[in-house]
């Protein structure tokens, strides 16, 4: 689960977390299933916090070449 979680974007992780809470609210799961979801939820929450905690804006550039195709370009810091 944790490897999958690490690859999720903030929005994906948040969506999954909200679904887990919804599942838990529905209360249709056994205690073991509830705890498994809770564990996943904690991992997702940690992942979200980590993403939120990133302080540096990451900027990629996509530049059109003379032949009309786009490619990753030089980093741009905007300063």
């Amino acid at each position, binding site marked *: 689960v944790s490897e999958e979680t690490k690859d999720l974007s903030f929005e994906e992780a948040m969506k999954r977390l909200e679904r887990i809470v919804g599942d838990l609210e529905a209360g249709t799961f056994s205690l073991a299933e509830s705890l498994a979801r809770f564990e996943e939820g904690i991992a997702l*929450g940690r992942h979200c916090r980590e993403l939120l905690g990133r302080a540096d804006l990451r900027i990629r550039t996509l*530049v*059109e070449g003379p032949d009309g195709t786009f490619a990753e370009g030089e980093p*741009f810091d905007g300063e």
Partner: protein
Amino acid sequence: VAVITSPAGAAIRDILSTLRRRFPCVEVLFLPVPVQGAAAAPAIARALDELSARRGADVAIVGRGGGSLEDLWAFNEEVVARAIHRCAVPVISAVGHEKDVTIADLVADRRAATPTMAAEIAVPERVEVQHRLDAVLGSMLARVRSRSERAAARVNELLRSYALGRVRGRIEAGMQGVDFALQQLQRAARGGLRDRAARSDTLAARLGALDPRETLRRGYTACVDARTGRLLRGAGEALAAGDVHVAFHDGSVAARVAARVDEEAR
């Protein structure tokens, strides 16, 4: 967040600084394009198409800083309007100042008065998102806590329940039954041994009765073939054997059968 604008203008700086301030964890995909002159409109349109084909972002900001009507003209061009319209990624337009309205602004999913405002539309405040995350995690924690508390309460309830009490009673009764059965088994085993001992005494007595020596003691004799030692069971056998031994209770004697006498006696 994709940003399609000039690398030289104020727009990109305003957008980046706003994103940094509000939500620095976001990833920016910057597509530098000319925003004025004849090359601008087709370049903006191609950048939008490229972004759309790549599905390279969740939202795109297209625009430039303020300028004259001619400076903003690329954003009134049909190619730009059509590219915004067909873009698979939601587009926020941010062209010039508040008062400037271009066709791009009318076609876009959202119109921002300035590039800074476009960035504010594109991302939430980080602290708001953090609150939302905290709320979701808190709600999850509360759910799980109540779920496990409910389970614990149920266990306690079951432990105290009458049904379990009865089962416990039955188990205790069963244990007593087992003890009783074991005692009985031990008693029975001891009794069995005693019975068997008594029975073997009787058997010995009965075996004694069958002892041929007892019969000899009472005055009877047994006659055996002198050669084979076989017990002779009749007058004919004795006559045939000839030489016989006659056993008394205190010893045997050798004898010869002379003749059969019962027939002569008759």
